[in-house]
C-alpha cells in the first residue's frame, strides 16, 4: 500500500476520521506538525483518552505499518533494539561443520586455521542472525512506518537516555555490522501516563500534546460513531453522566473506552432510559473500584430527580483540580 502525507491539518483530521478516530483540531494540527517537522510526538493525558489509539489511527491514515514498542520496567536494549540469535548461529555451525572442515583443511598450524576461520566470521555476524526488535525494525524498514513507543514512563531512565540517541539521529551502531541508518524517518509517537517525570532532554526532542478527556459533544460523537445502535437521547444522557462522574473525585475516572463499553452494555440490555435499576446493574462497567461504586451510587440516588435537567460539567484544562486529580489517578 502506498503511504500518504497530508498537506493541511484539516486533511489529516479527515483522514483520522476515516479511521474512526475523532480528532479535534488540536490533535490534528500537532500531529500534522510532527509529520512536517519530522519530530517525535509525545502525548500525555489521563489513562484511556485514546493516546495509543491515535498512533494506530495515524498508521491507518497514512497507510504505514505500525511498529509498537511497549515499555515496562527493566526494558533494555536487547529487547528494544536487537539481539544476536545465538541458538541459530550455533545450529548453523553444527550443520555447516563439514563445510568448515573443508575450509580449514590444509591449514598448517593453529594460527593459519584461525585466520581462515576469521575470514568467514562475517557469515555468522550478518543480518541473517540479527534478531530485530521494534526500534531496529522501524529503522531498517524499507517502507515508511509509524513507531509507537507506548507508556515510556514505565521504562527506566536509563532506557530513556538510550532512546534519545535513537530518536535524534535515527541510527544505531551494531559493533559487528557498523552503523545502520534509517531508510525512512518513521513517524514516532510516544505515550506517557505521567507516572514519573520524563527527562528534560527527551521532552526537548519531542512535540508535546496533552490529550484531555473530550467535551460532551466530542464524546457523544464517538459514542454515535462506535455504537450507532444506541438511541440518541439515551446516548447523550449516558455521556453526560460519564462527565459528571469525571468531575467527581474518584479513584479511577471512567475512560472513553469504558464509556463505549457502557454504551454497548446499554444496547445489549435494551435499556430505554437511565433509571435506577439500569444504573445499578451497569455502573460496574464504568467504575472499577468498589469504593468508587458505592460513592457514586450514594451520590446518584441523592440527586436522581434532576439527573436530566442538570447542565453537564465539562472538565476544563485550566482547572487546577483536574490536574491534581489526573496526577493522582495515574
Amino acid at each position, binding site marked *: 500500500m502506498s503511504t500518504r502525507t497530508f498537506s493541511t*491539518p484539516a486533511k489529516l483530521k479527515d483522514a483520522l476520521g476515516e479511521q474512526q478516530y475523532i480528532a479535534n*483540531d*488540536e490533535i490534528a*494540527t*500537532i500531529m*500534522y*506538525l510532527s509529520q*512536517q*517537522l519530522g*519530530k517525535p510526538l*509525545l502525548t*500525555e*493525558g489521563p489513562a484511556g483518552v485514546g493516546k495509543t489509539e491515535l498512533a494506530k489511527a495515524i498508521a491507518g491514515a497514512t497507510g504505514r505499518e505500525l511498529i509498537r514498542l511497549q515499555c515496562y520496567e527493566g526494558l533494555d536494549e536487547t529487547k528494544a533494539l536487537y539481539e544476536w540469535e*545465538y*541458538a541459530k548461529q*550455533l545450529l548453523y555451525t553444527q550443520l555447516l561443520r563439514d563445510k568448515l572442515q573443508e575450509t580449514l583443511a590444509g591449514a598448517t598450524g593453529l594460527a593459519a586455521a584461525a585466520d581462515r576461520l576469521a575470514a568467514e566470521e562475517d557469515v555468522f555476524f550478518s543480518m541473517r542472525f540479527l534478531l530485530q526488535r521494534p526500534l531496529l525494525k522501524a529503522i531498517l524498514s524499507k517502507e515508511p512506518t509509524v513507531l509507537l513507543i507506548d507508556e515510556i514512563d514505565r521504562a*527506566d*531512565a*536509563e532506557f530513556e*537516555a538510550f532512546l534519545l540517541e535513537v530518536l535524534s539521529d535515527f541510527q544505531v551502531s551494531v559493533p559487528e555490522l557498523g552503523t545502520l541508518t534509517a531508510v525512512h524517518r518513521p513517524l514516532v509517537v510516544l505515550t506517557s501516563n*505521567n507516572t*514519573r*517525570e520524563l*527527562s*528534560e532532554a527527551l*521532552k*526537548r*526532542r*519531542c*512535540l*508535546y*500534546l*496533552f490529550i484531555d478527556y473530550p467535551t460532551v459533544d466530542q464524546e457523544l460523537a464517538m459514542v454515535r460513531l462506535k455504537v450507532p445502535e444506541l438511541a440518541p437521547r439515551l446516548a447523550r444522557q449516558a455521556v453526560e453522566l460519564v462527565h459528571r462522574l469525571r468531575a467527581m473525585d474518584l479513584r479511577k475516572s471512567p475512560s472513553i473506552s469504558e464509556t463505549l463499553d457502557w454504551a454497548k452494555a446499554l444496547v445489549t440490555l435494551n435499556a430505554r432510559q437511565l433509571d435506577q435499576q439500569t444504573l445499578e446493574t451497569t455502573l460496574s462497567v464504568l467504575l472499577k473500584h468498589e469504593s468508587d461504586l458505592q460513592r457514586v451510587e450514594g451520590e446518584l440516588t441523592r440527586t436522581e430527580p434532576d439527573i436530566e435537567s442538570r447542565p453537564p460539567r465539562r472538565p476544563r*484544562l*485550566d482547572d*487546577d483540580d483536574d*490536574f*491534581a486529580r*489526573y*496526577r*493522582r489517578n*495515574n
Partner: protein
Amino acid sequence: MEDRIVKFISALRGGGVRVSLAESADAFRAIQELGIQDRERFRLALRATLVKDAGDIPTFEELFPLFFSSGEAPPLLNLAQDLSPDEAGMIAEALRQFSRKLREMLEKLLRGESLSQQELDQLGQMVGLNRADDLRQREWLARRMAQALRFREVQEALRQLMELLAQMGMNKQRLDQLRQLLQANQQALLEQLRQHAGQRIAENLAQRRPDQGIDDLLNRPFNALSDQDMERLRKEIRRLAALLRSRIALRQKRAKTGQLDAKATIRANLKHGSVPIEIVHRDRTLKPKLIVICDISTSMRYCSELMLSLVYCLQDQISKTHAFAFIDHLEYISPDFAGRAPNEAVAGVLARMPSGHYNTDLGFSLEQFSRSFLDTMDSRTTFIVVGDGRNNYNDPRLDIFSTLARRSHRTIWLNPEAPMLWATGDSDMLKYAPLCHTILQVGTLAELTAAVDRFLIQR
C-alpha cells in the same frame, strides 16, 4: 513578529516554564509550517513546541493572549452621535454641574473614547505597574488603576447625572438606554485597563532574567525564605529529583560490568553445549534502600516542608524507601506519598500531624520504630534521620539508636542547625553524633543536594 515571539518565549521563561534554545528554534520552524494567519493553529504550534509539561499549559494560555491578541482596546460606543440636539443640550447642562475632572471623565464615557497610551502609562506609573512581574498581580493592579481613575466617583457621578437628566424631563426609556450604554462603556474601559496591566506585566516578565538568582536562593538558609522563594524552590527540588534519577541510573549501569559470574555463565551456556558464548557478569546491585525519619516538630517547621518534599522525591526515585515522620510519636508516611502530587502529599502530612504544644520525642519515636518496623531495616539500608536533635530533655534512647545504626548499612543525620548550636539548650545532637557515620549540615538547598548525592554513592 519574530521579535514578538522571542519576547513571548522569554516571558514564558520568566513565568517559570523551561524553554530551551532548541525548542524555540522548533517553534519557529513550526510557525513556518503552519503560518500565522490562523491564530488557533499559531497557538497550537507554539504550545506543542514550547510547553512540555501539562502543568505549564495554564501559564502558556494566560500569557498567549497578552502577546498575540489584536492589541486593540475593546470598542466603546459613542453616545453623542444619536442624541437629538435637545437631549444633547440637556446633557451638556447637567454636566456643567460637575467638577472639571469628573466632567472630562464623563464626557469620555459619553463620547466613547478609550484611554490614550499616554494616559495608560501615567496610570501605570502611579500604581507601580512598571515593577510588577507576576501575573497574579494583574487583577489587583487593574483595580488600582481604576481607583486612580476615580472610577467609583465617576460611577456615583453617573448616577447623579441620570437623576439630573430625569429631573430635566428626559424620556424614561431613552434614559434607560443611555444608562445601559454608559455601563457598557465603563466595562470596556475596565477591560482596557486589565489588558494594559496584563501586557505590561507580560513585558516585564519577558525582560526579567529567567532563574534569576537561583544560585543565591540555593545558598540562602531555609528560615530566610519567603513564600515566593518556596514556590521556586519546590520547582527546583523537582528538577533536582529528575537529575538524581538519571544519576542513579548511570551508577546502576556502571555496576553491571562487574566480576565474571561463573555459575550463571555455565548455566546460561548449557544450551550451547557449555561453550561459553554468553558471558554473564555478576550484577552488582547498587539499589539503595532508604529509611527516612523526619522531624516535623515546631523547631523544624520552617524547613519541614522542604525536607518532606525531599523525602517525597527520594521515595519517588528509590522504590525501596520507607518514610516516617515524628513529633511526639512516629507515623508511617510512605502511604501518604504514594500516588499523590508532591505539594498535596506534603501538605497532607503536615495537616495530619499539626505542630502543637506537645513535645518532640525522638527517643519514644525510635522505640516505636524498633517495635513495629525493625524488619524493614537490614544491612543494605541507609538510615537517614532528618532533624535538629532537639529532644525537649526526653530520653534520647541512645541504646536503640546505636542498635539501629549498627544494623543499617550507613546512618546519616541531616541537621539544618549549625554545629556550634548543637551543644546548646535541649539539643542531644552531640550524644547522637558519635553513633552516626555521617552528619551533614543542610541549612540550604545547595547543601541538601550535595547531601542527597552522597546517599546514592554508597561506598
